[in-house]
């Protein structure tokens, strides 16, 4: 009897330890997928009765409730249940957790760079899908299509036309201010009319580094070649005409910044509030900023224009952007063929079903990346972006910047320049040094 107990206790201990080890162990083994209480297996079991059941990982927080509503509508229409999970950490760490626990999401919303780094291992080849013919923004690697573009987003100068009109008395026509010289004249006019500080500059590292500085690389013929020349030291950014012209414009934005006394306190929330309420007239940003601007009861007459520059390469007539946020479908064994098919159907629903299109354009207020969707974009910034996109006036995003680019150059170097703690030569040196030490991503 005593021995029985002992054996039982030991056996229990071993079993529990083993199950823990298996749970924490490699996510590649198929056993661990079985022992872990994975969302995927649970939902597969639940799905046996009523169509498949899929999960979506959403990394665009501002459309979470809209996607949840869409999931309900989709379930009513098709019987497929969709569960939407919101991002609660960085994309990489959320997905790392999901994969390590053997319960990946069926559909994953990630940034373009994540598709390049993850798709070959984790994403389903979508080459056969119909929607590929209706977009120019899908991401393919080799001959396989992995990324479904969720929307189009672009960067430029956001303006408040009403605030400008209040002072100049004329309707604001952004196409008249392509060059920095003409833009400066307007700024001077606004200042003379009583708007002492017509611009705002957000201090966030991603805005400065990933959005503004990145344009220096993007607005040229061959970005890869340029970065390679910075990397091997054969070029210096200080001699670069694009750097000079964009920084000249930045200086004007910086000098007329409402927060020029304390630029590092000018965070996104305050800056956009001032723009929405017409205290300032211009801010560098993108159409995603509408989600913040719209919270401050803005006037309808806002829009986006290219960053003015004294240049004749045509980039001052274009916004910078393209596909943004991509869906990929998990290809691992943890997602069944039924679920993969259900996920493909869901993507097709978004593109080709009227209800799905309405979710993208009306509910989520996104600029669709598909030419067959003709619904009007409701928000003014999105409408600007759509008109530039439709006329082919977008400079493409460069999706291969190193992961620490925005925090090192945007957060450390560019913020110092913004705060007046380094001059342009010092800033240029930091950029050169960064690129000389950087490892360029192969693609």
């Amino acid at each position, binding site marked *: 009897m005593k021995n029985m107990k002992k054996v039982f*206790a030991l056996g229990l201990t071993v079993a529990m330890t083993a199950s823990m080890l298996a749970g924490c162990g490699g996510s590649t083994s198929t056993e661990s997928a079985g022992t872990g209480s994975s969302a995927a297996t649970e939902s597969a079991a639940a799905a046996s009765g009523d169509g498949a059941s899929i999960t979506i990982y959403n990394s665009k927080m501002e459309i979470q409730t809209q996607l949840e509503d869409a999931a309900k509508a989709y379930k009513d229409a098709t019987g497929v249940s969709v569960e939407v999970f919101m991002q609660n950490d*960085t994309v*990489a760490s959320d997905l790392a957790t999901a994969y390590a626990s053997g319960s990946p999401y069926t559909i994953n919303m990630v940034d373009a760079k994540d598709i390049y780094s993850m798709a070959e291992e*984790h994403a389903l080849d979508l080459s056969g899908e119909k929607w590929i013919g209706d977009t120019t923004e899908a991401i393919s690697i080799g001959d396989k299509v992995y990324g479904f573009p969720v929307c189009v987003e672009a960067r430029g100068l956001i303006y408040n036309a009403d605030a400008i009109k209040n002072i100049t008395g004329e309707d604001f026509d952004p196409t008249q201010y392509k060059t920095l010289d003409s833009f400066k004249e307007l700024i001077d006019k606004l200042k003379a009319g009583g708007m002492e500080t017509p611009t705002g500059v957000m201090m966030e590292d991603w805005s400065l580094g990933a959005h503004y500085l990145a344009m220096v690389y993007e607005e040229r013929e061959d970005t890869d070649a340029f970065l390679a020349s910075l990397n091997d030291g054969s070029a210096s950014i200080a001699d670069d005409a694009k750097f000079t012209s964009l920084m000249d414009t930045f200086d004007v934005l910086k000098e007329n910044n409402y927060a020029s006394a304390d630029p*590092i306190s000018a965070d996104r929330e305050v800056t956009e509030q001032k723009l929405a309420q017409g205290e300032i007239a211009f801010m560098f940003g993108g159409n995603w900023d509408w989600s913040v601007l719209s919270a401050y009861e803005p006037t309808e007459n806002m829009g986006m224009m290219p960053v003015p520059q004294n240049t004749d390469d045509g980039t001052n007539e274009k916004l910078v952007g393209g596909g943004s946020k991509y869906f990929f479908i998990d290809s691992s064994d943890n997602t069944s063929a039924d679920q993969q098919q259900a996920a493909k159907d869901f993507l097709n629903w978004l593109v080709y079903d009227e209800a799905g299109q309405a979710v993208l354009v009306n509910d989520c207020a996104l600029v669709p990346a598909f030419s067959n969707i003709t619904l009007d974009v409701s928000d003014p910034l999105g409408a600007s972006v759509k008109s530039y996109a439709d006329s082919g006036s977008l400079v493409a995003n460069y999706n291969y910047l190193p992961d620490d680019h925005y*925090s090192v150059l945007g957060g450390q170097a560019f913020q110092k320049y913004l705060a007046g703690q380094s001059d342009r030569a010092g800033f240029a040196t930091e950029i050169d040094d960064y690129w000389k030490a950087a490892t360029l991503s192969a693609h």
Partner: protein
Amino acid sequence: MDRNKMSYRVSQFLIFAGPATLLFVGTVIVPLIYGFYLTFTSWDGVSKNKPIVGLDNYVAAFADKIYWQSMGRTIFYSVFSVIFINILAFALAYLVTMEVTVRQKDKNGKKTVMNRGIWGQNFFRAGFFVPNLIGGIVLGYVWQFVFKRALVSLGNAITQGNVPSLLATSGGAMFCLILVSVWQYAGYMMLIYVAGFMSVPEDLKEAALIDGCTPAQAMKNVTIPLMRSSFVQCLFLSITRCFVIYDVNLSLTDGDPFGSSVLAAMHVYNQAFTYKNYGLGQAEALILFVVCAIIGITQVYIGKKGEVAA
């Protein structure tokens, strides 16, 4: 039943300590070993492949200038936080256990002398402890609002000028971090010191006073030596907490401005998850753990050596 038999002792251990041991092994030891294994790989965090790279991550960690800068900042931050947390906690504990001598007449008109705590002591104890109950993230955002908006508006109103926010200067951001940490942890450490004060027997203090000590001398020579274990505990807790602080760092400063308030834990997180160098991040985390463990254990060892009992 033979209580000395091995089987009996094993089963007793399993019954009482088994569940806790299992949990500890499963949630701490196994991940620690697995994490140690990951430091030898160049895993990016999501990939299926974990290529073994030997000691490359440790070489890279020691060459990572930004990591060592953040480590230096962490030490700076920890030294000042620990000092101020403990000074404040000790002072608060003294105040909320302080007794005053009251002379009063009872209802029969007889004069009595009694010692009692100052009015509202329990309320103050609870009040000082409350910041510790608020999560670090919330606390960081609350204080961010105070530093960025409230103090700036107040300053502007008083000086009629433009007062920059403390969080916008590199020194200021570190100052804010230290201030908020002191505010957060002082109440918790205060409780430990309160327990320490209460554990010192009254008769020893009285004896010291009767023998001619001034209250300050009694404090220095009797009370504080007898409270040594409280100091050891508080120092250990505050040192280890400060070294791995992340939540307040994230929500209060997020490393701004110019990356000048990135502490070691935040850099480790960025390295692993933002820059996708999971192996390197893990190696740097391990170094941080070792540094923290060495400092903590040394401190406890030195502290325990001189402990006295009443």
